[in-house]
Protein backbone atom coordinates (compact mmCIF):
# COMPACT_ATOMS: atom_id res chain seq x y z
CA UNK A 1 0.00 0.00 0.00
CA UNK A 2 2.92 2.27 0.65
CA UNK A 3 3.86 1.84 -3.04
CA UNK A 4 0.38 2.95 -4.03
CA UNK A 5 0.50 6.21 -2.15
CA UNK A 6 4.05 6.97 -3.26
CA UNK A 7 3.01 6.47 -6.86
CA UNK A 8 -0.10 8.55 -6.36
CA UNK A 9 1.85 11.50 -5.01
CA UNK A 10 4.34 11.16 -7.83
CA UNK A 11 1.64 11.21 -10.52
CA UNK A 12 -0.24 14.05 -8.86
CA UNK A 13 2.90 16.18 -8.55
CA UNK A 14 3.86 15.38 -12.14
CA UNK A 15 0.43 16.42 -13.39
CA UNK A 16 0.46 19.74 -11.50
CA UNK A 17 4.02 20.66 -12.39
CA UNK A 18 3.66 19.88 -16.09
CA UNK A 19 0.34 21.74 -16.18
CA UNK A 20 2.08 24.85 -14.83
CA UNK A 21 4.97 24.36 -17.22
CA UNK A 22 2.57 24.01 -20.10
CA UNK A 23 0.99 27.35 -19.46
CA UNK A 24 4.23 29.24 -18.94
CA UNK A 25 6.17 27.98 -22.00
CA UNK A 26 6.89 30.48 -24.78
CA UNK A 27 7.49 27.72 -27.37
CA UNK A 28 4.13 26.28 -28.34
CA UNK A 29 5.42 22.79 -29.12
CA UNK A 30 7.03 22.56 -25.67
CA UNK A 31 3.65 23.52 -24.23
CA UNK A 32 2.01 20.71 -26.18
CA UNK A 33 4.59 18.22 -24.91
CA UNK A 34 3.93 19.22 -21.32
CA UNK A 35 0.19 18.91 -21.92
CA UNK A 36 0.86 15.33 -23.04
CA UNK A 37 2.79 14.62 -19.82
CA UNK A 38 -0.14 15.98 -17.80
CA UNK A 39 -2.57 13.69 -19.57
CA UNK A 40 -0.25 10.69 -19.07
CA UNK A 41 0.02 11.56 -15.38
CA UNK A 42 -3.78 11.53 -14.98
CA UNK A 43 -3.84 8.22 -16.88
CA UNK A 44 -1.40 6.94 -14.26
CA UNK A 45 -3.79 7.93 -11.52
CA UNK A 46 -6.60 5.98 -13.25
CA UNK A 47 -4.35 2.95 -13.28
CA UNK A 48 -3.74 3.31 -9.56
CA UNK A 49 -7.48 3.12 -9.06
CA UNK A 50 -7.38 -0.23 -10.91
CA UNK A 51 -9.52 1.24 -13.72
CA UNK A 52 -7.25 -0.06 -16.47
CA UNK A 53 -9.84 0.36 -19.26
CA UNK A 54 -10.08 4.07 -18.41
CA UNK A 55 -6.27 4.22 -18.37
CA UNK A 56 -6.14 2.75 -21.87
CA UNK A 57 -8.89 4.96 -23.22
CA UNK A 58 -7.18 8.04 -21.79
CA UNK A 59 -3.90 7.05 -23.42
CA UNK A 60 -5.31 6.07 -26.80
CA UNK A 61 -7.92 8.77 -27.07
CA UNK A 62 -6.33 11.85 -25.61
CA UNK A 63 -2.64 11.32 -26.01
CA UNK A 64 -2.68 9.08 -29.06
CA UNK A 65 -5.46 10.82 -30.94
CA UNK A 66 -6.37 14.36 -29.97
CA UNK A 67 -2.89 15.55 -29.04
CA UNK A 68 -1.52 14.29 -32.37
CA UNK A 69 -3.97 16.55 -34.15
CA UNK A 70 -2.99 19.39 -31.81
CA UNK A 71 0.66 19.02 -32.77
CA UNK A 72 -0.34 18.53 -36.40
CA UNK A 73 -2.07 21.91 -36.48
CA UNK A 74 0.73 23.61 -34.54
CA UNK A 75 3.20 22.43 -37.17
CA UNK A 76 1.10 23.29 -40.19
CA UNK A 77 0.27 26.80 -39.03
CA UNK A 78 3.63 28.23 -37.98
CA UNK A 79 2.67 30.19 -34.91
CA UNK A 80 5.82 32.31 -34.58
CA UNK A 81 3.89 35.10 -36.23
CA UNK A 82 1.16 35.14 -33.59
CA UNK A 83 3.74 35.05 -30.77
CA UNK A 84 5.26 38.31 -31.93
CA UNK A 85 1.94 40.17 -31.75
CA UNK A 86 1.50 42.40 -28.71
CA UNK A 87 -0.18 40.46 -25.88
CA UNK A 88 -2.45 42.89 -24.04
CA UNK A 89 -3.80 42.07 -20.66
CA UNK A 90 -6.33 44.69 -19.66
CA UNK A 91 -9.13 42.58 -18.21
CA UNK A 92 -7.49 42.52 -14.77
CA UNK A 93 -10.76 43.25 -12.99
CA UNK A 94 -12.75 40.53 -14.77
CA UNK A 95 -9.94 38.03 -14.13
CA UNK A 96 -9.96 38.91 -10.43
CA UNK A 97 -13.69 38.28 -10.05
CA UNK A 98 -13.51 34.99 -11.89
CA UNK A 99 -10.60 33.80 -9.74
CA UNK A 100 -12.54 34.63 -6.58
CA UNK A 101 -15.63 32.69 -7.74
CA UNK A 102 -13.52 29.64 -8.64
CA UNK A 103 -11.68 29.81 -5.27
CA UNK A 104 -14.95 29.89 -3.38
CA UNK A 105 -16.24 26.85 -5.23
CA UNK A 106 -13.11 24.80 -4.50
CA UNK A 107 -13.17 25.80 -0.82
CA UNK A 108 -16.83 24.74 -0.58
CA UNK A 109 -16.07 21.39 -2.23
CA UNK A 110 -13.25 20.70 0.26
CA UNK A 111 -15.41 21.79 3.20
CA UNK A 112 -18.30 19.50 2.23
CA UNK A 113 -16.13 16.53 1.37
CA UNK A 114 -14.20 16.75 4.63
CA UNK A 115 -14.43 13.06 5.32
CA UNK A 116 -13.37 11.83 1.91
CA UNK A 117 -10.12 13.75 2.00
CA UNK A 118 -8.40 11.06 4.05
CA UNK A 119 -9.58 7.80 2.48
CA UNK A 120 -9.37 4.58 4.38
CA UNK A 121 -6.07 3.05 3.62
CA UNK A 122 -7.49 0.06 1.82
CA UNK A 123 -8.92 0.94 -1.63
CA UNK A 124 -11.98 -1.26 -2.36
CA UNK A 125 -10.92 -3.82 -4.93
CA UNK A 126 -13.08 -3.28 -8.04
CA UNK A 127 -13.78 -6.54 -9.89
CA UNK A 128 -10.64 -7.46 -11.86
CA UNK A 129 -12.51 -7.72 -15.10
CA UNK A 130 -12.77 -3.92 -15.40
CA UNK A 131 -13.28 -3.89 -19.14
CA UNK A 132 -16.25 -6.27 -19.01
CA UNK A 133 -17.83 -4.17 -16.27
CA UNK A 134 -17.53 -1.01 -18.34
CA UNK A 135 -18.84 -2.81 -21.43
CA UNK A 136 -21.86 -4.21 -19.61
CA UNK A 137 -22.74 -0.79 -18.18
CA UNK A 138 -22.19 0.99 -21.45
CA UNK A 139 -24.19 -1.36 -23.68
CA UNK A 140 -26.61 -2.58 -21.10
CA UNK A 141 -27.83 0.00 -18.63
CA UNK A 142 -26.76 3.18 -20.45
CA UNK A 143 -27.71 2.02 -23.95
CA UNK A 144 -29.72 5.11 -24.87
CA UNK A 145 -27.24 7.84 -23.82
CA UNK A 146 -24.53 5.86 -25.64
CA UNK A 147 -26.53 5.92 -28.88
CA UNK A 148 -27.36 9.61 -28.54
CA UNK A 149 -23.72 10.45 -27.91
CA UNK A 150 -22.60 8.48 -30.96
CA UNK A 151 -25.17 10.22 -33.18
CA UNK A 152 -23.97 13.58 -31.83
CA UNK A 153 -20.39 12.68 -32.72
CA UNK A 154 -21.46 11.55 -36.16
CA UNK A 155 -23.20 14.86 -36.81
CA UNK A 156 -20.13 16.77 -35.64
CA UNK A 157 -17.88 14.73 -37.95
CA UNK A 158 -20.12 15.23 -40.97
CA UNK A 159 -20.23 18.97 -40.20
CA UNK A 160 -16.45 19.14 -40.14
CA UNK A 161 -16.16 17.23 -43.42
CA UNK A 162 -18.72 19.48 -45.15
CA UNK A 163 -16.94 22.63 -43.99
CA UNK A 164 -13.55 21.35 -45.09
CA UNK A 165 -14.92 19.99 -48.37
CA UNK A 166 -15.96 23.42 -49.62
CA UNK A 167 -12.41 24.69 -49.29
CA UNK A 168 -10.41 21.92 -51.00
Amino acid sequence: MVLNSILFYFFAALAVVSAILMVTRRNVVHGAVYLITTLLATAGVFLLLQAEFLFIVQVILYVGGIMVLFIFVIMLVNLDVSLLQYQFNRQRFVAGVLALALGAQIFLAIKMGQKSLFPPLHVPDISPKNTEAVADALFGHFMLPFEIASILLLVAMIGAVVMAKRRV
Partner: protein
Amino acid sequence: MGHLFTPSILRLVLPVLYAVVIVAVLPLMAGYIVLMERKVMADMQARLGPMRVGPHGLLQPIADAVKLLLKEDIIPEKADRLLFWLAPLVSVTMALLAYAALPIGPAFQIADLNIGLLFILAVSSLGIYGIVLGGWASNSHYSLLGALRSAAQLVSYETAAGLGLISALLLAGSLSMKDIVMAQYDQGMWFIFYVPIGFFIYMVGSIAETNRAPFDLPEAESELVAGYMTEYSGFRWSLYFLAEYANMIIVAGIATTLFLGGWLRPFASYHDHMPGTSIEFLDALPALLVLGVALYCFFLAPKQPVKIQKLVMGLVGGLCLAIAGILAGSLFASPGVLQGVHGAFWFMAKVFGYLYCFLWFRFTFPRYRFDQLMRLGWRFLIPLALVNLITMAVALLMSREWGWSLRLTSILAVVVTLAVAMWLAKNDEVDSVVPVAESE
Protein backbone atom coordinates in the same frame (compact mmCIF):
# COMPACT_ATOMS: atom_id res chain seq x y z
CA MET B 1 16.62 -22.17 -0.85
CA GLY B 2 12.98 -23.09 -1.49
CA HIS B 3 11.62 -20.10 0.37
CA LEU B 4 13.50 -17.79 -1.92
CA PHE B 5 11.21 -18.59 -4.86
CA THR B 6 7.93 -18.00 -3.09
CA PRO B 7 5.22 -17.26 -5.65
CA SER B 8 4.99 -13.54 -4.75
CA ILE B 9 8.76 -13.02 -5.17
CA LEU B 10 8.66 -15.14 -8.31
CA ARG B 11 5.81 -13.01 -9.64
CA LEU B 12 8.04 -9.95 -9.23
CA VAL B 13 11.46 -11.31 -10.18
CA LEU B 14 10.49 -13.28 -13.27
CA PRO B 15 8.96 -10.36 -15.24
CA VAL B 16 12.04 -8.22 -14.45
CA LEU B 17 14.22 -11.08 -15.70
CA TYR B 18 12.16 -11.39 -18.90
CA ALA B 19 12.29 -7.61 -19.38
CA VAL B 20 16.09 -7.59 -19.09
CA VAL B 21 16.33 -10.48 -21.57
CA ILE B 22 14.08 -8.76 -24.09
CA VAL B 23 15.76 -5.34 -23.85
CA ALA B 24 19.17 -7.00 -24.20
CA VAL B 25 18.25 -9.31 -27.05
CA LEU B 26 16.23 -6.77 -29.02
CA PRO B 27 19.05 -4.59 -30.50
CA LEU B 28 20.86 -7.79 -31.50
CA MET B 29 17.69 -9.15 -33.12
CA ALA B 30 17.04 -5.83 -34.86
CA GLY B 31 20.58 -5.95 -36.22
CA TYR B 32 20.09 -9.48 -37.55
CA ILE B 33 16.77 -8.56 -39.10
CA VAL B 34 18.66 -5.85 -41.01
CA LEU B 35 21.12 -8.51 -42.15
CA MET B 36 18.24 -10.81 -43.11
CA GLU B 37 16.68 -7.92 -45.04
CA ARG B 38 19.89 -7.20 -46.96
CA LYS B 39 20.47 -10.88 -47.70
CA VAL B 40 16.89 -11.46 -48.90
CA MET B 41 17.02 -8.27 -50.98
CA ALA B 42 20.28 -9.40 -52.55
CA ASP B 43 18.86 -12.83 -53.23
CA MET B 44 15.88 -11.35 -55.04
CA GLN B 45 18.12 -9.09 -57.08
CA ALA B 46 20.48 -11.77 -58.39
CA ARG B 47 23.40 -10.78 -56.16
CA LEU B 48 25.05 -11.89 -52.91
CA GLY B 49 24.55 -9.17 -50.28
CA PRO B 50 27.06 -8.55 -47.46
CA MET B 51 29.71 -11.29 -47.58
CA ARG B 52 32.80 -9.60 -46.24
CA VAL B 53 32.30 -9.17 -42.48
CA GLY B 54 32.29 -12.64 -40.99
CA PRO B 55 31.27 -15.78 -42.89
CA HIS B 56 28.47 -14.87 -45.30
CA GLY B 57 28.25 -11.46 -43.66
CA LEU B 58 27.05 -12.93 -40.33
CA LEU B 59 29.03 -10.39 -38.27
CA GLN B 60 27.72 -7.46 -40.33
CA PRO B 61 25.22 -6.29 -37.65
CA ILE B 62 28.04 -5.99 -35.10
CA ALA B 63 30.04 -3.93 -37.58
CA ASP B 64 26.98 -1.72 -38.20
CA ALA B 65 26.41 -1.25 -34.48
CA VAL B 66 30.02 -0.23 -33.85
CA LYS B 67 29.93 2.15 -36.80
CA LEU B 68 26.75 3.80 -35.53
CA LEU B 69 28.20 4.20 -32.05
CA LEU B 70 31.38 5.83 -33.35
CA LYS B 71 29.66 8.16 -35.78
CA GLU B 72 29.61 11.86 -34.85
CA ASP B 73 26.27 12.95 -33.46
CA ILE B 74 25.39 16.29 -35.08
CA ILE B 75 22.67 18.61 -33.79
CA PRO B 76 21.56 21.24 -36.33
CA GLU B 77 22.41 24.72 -35.09
CA LYS B 78 18.91 26.23 -34.96
CA ALA B 79 17.27 22.93 -33.95
CA ASP B 80 15.05 22.80 -30.88
CA ARG B 81 17.50 21.09 -28.49
CA LEU B 82 15.01 19.72 -25.99
CA LEU B 83 12.74 18.15 -28.59
CA PHE B 84 15.65 17.03 -30.78
CA TRP B 85 16.97 15.03 -27.82
CA LEU B 86 13.54 13.87 -26.66
CA ALA B 87 12.07 12.63 -29.97
CA PRO B 88 14.16 9.48 -30.59
CA LEU B 89 13.85 8.62 -26.89
CA VAL B 90 10.07 8.70 -27.11
CA SER B 91 10.15 6.48 -30.19
CA VAL B 92 12.39 3.85 -28.60
CA THR B 93 10.73 3.75 -25.19
CA MET B 94 7.28 3.35 -26.72
CA ALA B 95 8.55 0.59 -28.98
CA LEU B 96 10.16 -1.28 -26.07
CA LEU B 97 7.22 -0.70 -23.73
CA ALA B 98 4.92 -2.59 -26.08
CA TYR B 99 6.85 -5.81 -25.38
CA ALA B 100 5.34 -5.98 -21.92
CA ALA B 101 2.25 -7.84 -23.03
CA LEU B 102 3.71 -9.91 -25.88
CA PRO B 103 3.36 -13.66 -25.10
CA ILE B 104 6.47 -15.32 -26.57
CA GLY B 105 5.81 -18.60 -24.79
CA PRO B 106 3.05 -19.80 -22.44
CA ALA B 107 5.25 -18.74 -19.48
CA PHE B 108 7.56 -16.30 -21.21
CA GLN B 109 5.38 -13.19 -20.90
CA ILE B 110 6.30 -10.16 -18.84
CA ALA B 111 2.76 -9.26 -17.79
CA ASP B 112 -0.43 -10.95 -18.79
CA LEU B 113 -2.52 -7.75 -18.69
CA ASN B 114 -6.25 -8.07 -18.73
CA ILE B 115 -6.24 -5.47 -21.56
CA GLY B 116 -3.05 -6.80 -23.20
CA LEU B 117 -3.85 -6.09 -26.84
CA LEU B 118 -5.28 -2.64 -26.13
CA PHE B 119 -2.14 -1.75 -24.16
CA ILE B 120 0.14 -2.68 -27.06
CA LEU B 121 -1.99 -0.69 -29.52
CA ALA B 122 -2.05 2.35 -27.22
CA VAL B 123 1.68 2.36 -26.65
CA SER B 124 2.60 1.80 -30.28
CA SER B 125 0.29 4.66 -31.29
CA LEU B 126 2.37 6.92 -29.05
CA GLY B 127 5.30 6.19 -31.36
CA ILE B 128 3.96 8.88 -33.68
CA TYR B 129 5.24 11.53 -31.27
CA GLY B 130 8.80 10.40 -31.79
CA ILE B 131 8.45 10.92 -35.52
CA VAL B 132 6.43 14.13 -35.43
CA LEU B 133 8.53 15.89 -32.80
CA GLY B 134 11.72 14.71 -34.50
CA GLY B 135 10.57 16.22 -37.79
CA TRP B 136 9.64 19.50 -36.15
CA ALA B 137 12.80 19.81 -34.07
CA SER B 138 15.18 19.40 -37.03
CA ASN B 139 13.94 22.76 -38.31
CA SER B 140 14.10 21.93 -42.06
CA HIS B 141 11.45 21.79 -44.77
CA TYR B 142 12.27 18.23 -45.72
CA SER B 143 11.88 16.77 -42.23
CA LEU B 144 8.75 18.85 -41.58
CA LEU B 145 7.09 17.51 -44.75
CA GLY B 146 8.22 13.98 -43.86
CA ALA B 147 6.95 14.28 -40.28
CA LEU B 148 3.52 15.58 -41.33
CA ARG B 149 3.12 12.87 -43.92
CA SER B 150 4.01 10.07 -41.52
CA ALA B 151 1.68 11.44 -38.84
CA ALA B 152 -1.23 11.45 -41.26
CA GLN B 153 -0.31 7.99 -42.51
CA LEU B 154 0.00 6.44 -39.06
CA VAL B 155 -3.24 7.91 -37.79
CA SER B 156 -5.26 6.71 -40.75
CA TYR B 157 -3.76 3.21 -40.89
CA GLU B 158 -4.10 2.60 -37.18
CA THR B 159 -7.87 2.62 -37.57
CA ALA B 160 -7.68 0.13 -40.45
CA ALA B 161 -5.31 -2.18 -38.53
CA GLY B 162 -7.38 -1.84 -35.35
CA LEU B 163 -10.60 -2.80 -37.12
CA GLY B 164 -8.79 -5.74 -38.71
CA LEU B 165 -7.80 -6.92 -35.21
CA ILE B 166 -11.28 -6.53 -33.76
CA SER B 167 -12.69 -9.07 -36.20
CA ALA B 168 -10.28 -11.64 -34.68
CA LEU B 169 -11.14 -10.44 -31.16
CA LEU B 170 -14.76 -11.30 -31.78
CA LEU B 171 -13.74 -14.95 -31.93
CA ALA B 172 -11.36 -14.76 -28.98
CA GLY B 173 -13.72 -12.93 -26.67
CA SER B 174 -10.96 -11.50 -24.45
CA LEU B 175 -8.32 -8.81 -24.70
CA SER B 176 -5.64 -10.70 -22.77
CA MET B 177 -3.08 -12.13 -25.21
CA LYS B 178 -2.77 -15.44 -23.37
CA ASP B 179 -6.55 -15.96 -23.51
CA ILE B 180 -6.58 -15.21 -27.23
CA VAL B 181 -4.03 -17.94 -27.88
CA MET B 182 -5.89 -20.31 -25.59
CA ALA B 183 -9.10 -19.55 -27.52
CA GLN B 184 -7.41 -20.63 -30.72
CA TYR B 185 -6.20 -23.78 -28.92
CA ASP B 186 -9.73 -24.56 -27.70
CA GLN B 187 -11.40 -23.92 -31.05
CA GLY B 188 -8.68 -26.02 -32.68
CA MET B 189 -8.32 -23.58 -35.55
CA TRP B 190 -6.11 -20.54 -36.05
CA PHE B 191 -8.16 -17.41 -36.51
CA ILE B 192 -6.51 -16.74 -39.87
CA PHE B 193 -8.71 -19.45 -41.35
CA TYR B 194 -11.86 -18.03 -39.83
CA VAL B 195 -11.22 -14.40 -40.77
CA PRO B 196 -8.57 -14.28 -43.56
CA ILE B 197 -9.65 -10.81 -44.76
CA GLY B 198 -9.14 -9.46 -41.24
CA PHE B 199 -5.61 -10.86 -41.43
CA PHE B 200 -5.04 -9.27 -44.83
CA ILE B 201 -6.31 -5.87 -43.65
CA TYR B 202 -4.18 -6.08 -40.53
CA MET B 203 -1.12 -7.01 -42.57
CA VAL B 204 -1.55 -4.04 -44.92
CA GLY B 205 -2.31 -1.77 -41.95
CA SER B 206 0.73 -2.98 -40.04
CA ILE B 207 3.03 -2.40 -43.02
CA ALA B 208 1.77 1.16 -43.25
CA GLU B 209 2.00 1.63 -39.49
CA THR B 210 5.70 0.79 -39.43
CA ASN B 211 6.45 3.00 -42.47
CA ARG B 212 7.64 0.10 -44.57
CA ALA B 213 7.56 -1.27 -48.08
CA PRO B 214 5.10 0.34 -50.45
CA PHE B 215 4.10 2.81 -47.76
CA ASP B 216 7.53 4.18 -46.83
CA LEU B 217 6.60 7.74 -47.81
CA PRO B 218 8.11 9.49 -44.76
CA GLU B 219 11.63 8.51 -45.65
CA ALA B 220 11.08 8.17 -49.39
CA GLU B 221 14.67 8.53 -50.42
CA SER B 222 14.07 10.10 -53.80
CA GLU B 223 11.80 13.04 -52.92
CA LEU B 224 12.32 14.05 -49.30
CA VAL B 225 15.87 12.78 -48.94
CA ALA B 226 15.29 10.91 -45.66
CA GLY B 227 12.08 12.38 -44.25
CA TYR B 228 12.12 13.12 -40.55
CA MET B 229 15.43 11.30 -40.03
CA THR B 230 17.35 13.68 -42.32
CA GLU B 231 19.05 15.70 -39.59
CA TYR B 232 19.76 12.79 -37.26
CA SER B 233 23.07 10.98 -37.29
CA GLY B 234 25.14 8.59 -35.22
CA PHE B 235 23.60 7.04 -32.14
CA ARG B 236 20.47 9.20 -32.24
CA TRP B 237 19.68 7.95 -35.70
CA SER B 238 20.24 4.36 -34.62
CA LEU B 239 17.62 4.88 -31.87
CA TYR B 240 15.06 5.65 -34.56
CA PHE B 241 16.32 2.66 -36.50
CA LEU B 242 15.97 0.40 -33.46
CA ALA B 243 12.46 1.78 -32.82
CA GLU B 244 11.42 0.99 -36.40
CA TYR B 245 12.60 -2.62 -36.21
CA ALA B 246 11.22 -3.09 -32.71
CA ASN B 247 7.86 -1.88 -34.02
CA MET B 248 8.13 -4.37 -36.85
CA ILE B 249 8.68 -7.24 -34.42
CA ILE B 250 5.76 -6.11 -32.24
CA VAL B 251 3.41 -5.85 -35.19
CA ALA B 252 4.55 -9.32 -36.31
CA GLY B 253 4.04 -10.55 -32.72
CA ILE B 254 0.47 -9.23 -32.60
CA ALA B 255 -0.35 -10.81 -35.94
CA THR B 256 1.12 -14.15 -34.80
CA THR B 257 -0.75 -14.10 -31.52
CA LEU B 258 -4.08 -13.14 -32.99
CA PHE B 259 -4.15 -14.86 -36.34
CA LEU B 260 -1.41 -17.53 -36.40
CA GLY B 261 -1.96 -19.09 -32.99
CA GLY B 262 0.91 -17.50 -30.98
CA TRP B 263 3.15 -20.19 -29.53
CA LEU B 264 0.89 -23.05 -30.60
CA ARG B 265 2.39 -25.82 -32.69
CA PRO B 266 0.46 -26.34 -35.96
CA PHE B 267 -2.40 -28.80 -35.17
CA ALA B 268 -1.66 -28.22 -31.49
CA SER B 269 -5.01 -29.41 -30.21
CA TYR B 270 -5.29 -32.15 -32.77
CA HIS B 271 -5.54 -34.99 -30.29
CA ASP B 272 -8.41 -33.29 -28.41
CA HIS B 273 -10.55 -33.12 -31.52
CA MET B 274 -9.48 -36.36 -33.16
CA PRO B 275 -8.79 -38.60 -30.17
CA GLY B 276 -6.69 -41.64 -30.89
CA THR B 277 -4.70 -40.28 -33.80
CA SER B 278 -1.56 -38.71 -32.50
CA ILE B 279 0.76 -36.61 -34.61
CA GLU B 280 3.28 -35.96 -31.90
CA PHE B 281 6.06 -36.32 -34.41
CA LEU B 282 5.42 -32.63 -35.24
CA ASP B 283 7.04 -31.87 -31.88
CA ALA B 284 10.31 -33.21 -33.22
CA LEU B 285 10.16 -30.84 -36.20
CA PRO B 286 11.82 -27.83 -34.50
CA ALA B 287 14.76 -29.91 -33.28
CA LEU B 288 15.26 -31.47 -36.73
CA LEU B 289 15.05 -28.07 -38.43
CA VAL B 290 17.71 -26.48 -36.24
CA LEU B 291 19.86 -29.59 -36.57
CA GLY B 292 19.67 -29.21 -40.33
CA VAL B 293 20.86 -25.61 -40.04
CA ALA B 294 23.72 -26.69 -37.81
CA LEU B 295 24.84 -29.35 -40.29
CA TYR B 296 24.69 -26.84 -43.13
CA CYS B 297 26.90 -24.48 -41.12
CA PHE B 298 29.43 -27.24 -40.49
CA PHE B 299 29.29 -28.12 -44.17
CA LEU B 300 30.07 -24.51 -45.12
CA ALA B 301 32.74 -23.93 -42.48
CA PRO B 302 35.73 -25.47 -44.29
CA LYS B 303 34.84 -23.62 -47.51
CA GLN B 304 35.26 -20.14 -45.97
CA PRO B 305 38.20 -18.23 -47.49
CA VAL B 306 39.63 -16.77 -44.27
CA LYS B 307 40.64 -18.85 -41.26
CA ILE B 308 38.76 -16.63 -38.78
CA GLN B 309 35.61 -17.04 -40.85
CA LYS B 310 35.98 -20.80 -40.64
CA LEU B 311 36.15 -20.45 -36.88
CA VAL B 312 33.08 -18.22 -36.67
CA MET B 313 31.09 -20.49 -38.95
CA GLY B 314 32.02 -23.45 -36.79
CA LEU B 315 30.92 -21.46 -33.75
CA VAL B 316 27.55 -20.66 -35.35
CA GLY B 317 27.16 -24.35 -36.20
CA GLY B 318 27.88 -25.24 -32.60
CA LEU B 319 25.32 -22.71 -31.37
CA CYS B 320 22.63 -24.19 -33.62
CA LEU B 321 23.60 -27.64 -32.43
CA ALA B 322 23.12 -26.53 -28.80
CA ILE B 323 19.68 -25.11 -29.58
CA ALA B 324 18.73 -28.32 -31.37
CA GLY B 325 19.87 -30.18 -28.25
CA ILE B 326 17.68 -28.07 -25.99
CA LEU B 327 14.69 -28.50 -28.31
CA ALA B 328 15.21 -32.25 -28.46
CA GLY B 329 15.91 -32.49 -24.72
CA SER B 330 12.74 -30.67 -23.81
CA LEU B 331 10.79 -33.37 -25.67
CA PHE B 332 11.45 -35.71 -22.80
CA ALA B 333 11.07 -33.13 -20.05
CA SER B 334 7.73 -32.23 -18.38
CA PRO B 335 4.96 -30.93 -20.72
CA GLY B 336 5.29 -27.43 -19.19
CA VAL B 337 8.94 -27.12 -20.19
CA LEU B 338 8.13 -28.71 -23.57
CA GLN B 339 5.45 -26.13 -24.28
CA GLY B 340 7.62 -23.29 -23.02
CA VAL B 341 10.66 -24.05 -25.16
CA HIS B 342 8.82 -25.19 -28.28
CA GLY B 343 6.33 -22.39 -27.87
CA ALA B 344 9.12 -19.84 -28.06
CA PHE B 345 10.47 -21.59 -31.18
CA TRP B 346 7.12 -21.63 -32.96
CA PHE B 347 6.40 -18.03 -31.99
CA MET B 348 9.76 -16.91 -33.36
CA ALA B 349 9.29 -18.99 -36.53
CA LYS B 350 5.93 -17.37 -37.24
CA VAL B 351 7.25 -13.86 -36.45
CA PHE B 352 10.16 -14.30 -38.86
CA GLY B 353 7.79 -15.76 -41.46
CA TYR B 354 5.63 -12.66 -41.15
CA LEU B 355 8.72 -10.42 -41.40
CA TYR B 356 9.81 -12.29 -44.53
CA CYS B 357 6.53 -11.14 -46.15
CA PHE B 358 7.42 -7.55 -45.11
CA LEU B 359 10.77 -7.85 -46.91
CA TRP B 360 9.21 -9.60 -49.86
CA PHE B 361 6.72 -6.75 -50.39
CA ARG B 362 9.45 -4.19 -50.01
CA PHE B 363 11.46 -5.50 -52.94
CA THR B 364 8.66 -6.14 -55.37
CA PHE B 365 6.32 -3.18 -55.03
CA PRO B 366 7.11 0.42 -56.03
CA ARG B 367 6.17 3.14 -53.57
CA TYR B 368 2.64 4.54 -53.22
CA ARG B 369 2.16 8.24 -53.77
CA PHE B 370 0.88 10.02 -50.67
CA ASP B 371 -2.65 10.74 -51.88
CA GLN B 372 -3.02 7.18 -53.24
CA LEU B 373 -1.90 5.91 -49.87
CA MET B 374 -4.54 7.99 -48.12
CA ARG B 375 -7.20 6.96 -50.61
CA LEU B 376 -6.33 3.28 -50.15
CA GLY B 377 -6.52 3.69 -46.37
CA TRP B 378 -9.73 5.66 -46.07
CA ARG B 379 -11.67 4.59 -49.14
CA PHE B 380 -10.77 0.92 -49.35
CA LEU B 381 -9.29 -0.57 -46.21
CA ILE B 382 -11.43 1.00 -43.51
CA PRO B 383 -14.82 0.36 -45.22
CA LEU B 384 -13.67 -3.17 -46.03
CA ALA B 385 -12.65 -3.70 -42.39
CA LEU B 386 -16.06 -2.48 -41.20
CA VAL B 387 -17.88 -4.75 -43.61
CA ASN B 388 -15.65 -7.65 -42.56
CA LEU B 389 -16.43 -6.92 -38.91
CA ILE B 390 -20.18 -6.97 -39.55
CA THR B 391 -20.17 -10.13 -41.65
CA MET B 392 -17.92 -11.88 -39.06
CA ALA B 393 -20.29 -10.88 -36.25
CA VAL B 394 -23.28 -12.15 -38.22
CA ALA B 395 -21.42 -15.40 -38.96
CA LEU B 396 -20.60 -15.80 -35.25
CA LEU B 397 -24.21 -15.16 -34.32
CA MET B 398 -25.50 -17.63 -36.91
CA SER B 399 -23.17 -20.35 -35.65
CA ARG B 400 -24.17 -19.66 -32.01
CA GLU B 401 -27.93 -19.32 -32.55
CA TRP B 402 -28.59 -21.86 -35.32
CA GLY B 403 -25.79 -24.17 -34.37
CA TRP B 404 -24.15 -24.21 -37.82
CA SER B 405 -20.45 -24.94 -37.63
CA LEU B 406 -18.36 -21.80 -37.47
CA ARG B 407 -16.24 -22.95 -40.40
CA LEU B 408 -19.26 -22.89 -42.70
CA THR B 409 -20.57 -19.51 -41.58
CA SER B 410 -17.12 -17.91 -41.69
CA ILE B 411 -16.67 -19.06 -45.29
CA LEU B 412 -20.00 -17.41 -46.05
CA ALA B 413 -18.81 -14.22 -44.37
CA VAL B 414 -15.58 -14.27 -46.36
CA VAL B 415 -17.45 -14.60 -49.64
CA VAL B 416 -19.72 -11.66 -48.84
CA THR B 417 -16.77 -9.50 -47.79
CA LEU B 418 -14.86 -10.39 -50.97
CA ALA B 419 -17.83 -9.34 -53.07
CA VAL B 420 -17.93 -5.99 -51.29
CA ALA B 421 -14.16 -5.68 -51.74
CA MET B 422 -14.47 -6.18 -55.50
CA TRP B 423 -17.16 -3.52 -55.68
CA LEU B 424 -15.08 -1.11 -53.60
CA ALA B 425 -11.97 -1.71 -55.71
CA LYS B 426 -13.87 -1.18 -58.94
CA ASN B 427 -15.30 2.25 -58.20
CA ASP B 428 -12.08 3.15 -56.41
CA GLU B 429 -10.31 2.44 -59.69
CA VAL B 430 -12.39 4.93 -61.65
CA ASP B 431 -11.56 8.18 -59.95
CA SER B 432 -8.07 7.36 -58.72
CA VAL B 433 -6.67 7.37 -62.22
CA VAL B 434 -6.69 11.06 -62.98
CA PRO B 435 -6.37 13.03 -59.77
CA VAL B 436 -4.73 16.00 -61.47
CA ALA B 437 -6.96 16.59 -64.41
CA GLU B 438 -10.12 16.92 -62.31
CA SER B 439 -9.95 20.65 -62.58
CA GLU B 440 -9.73 20.56 -66.45
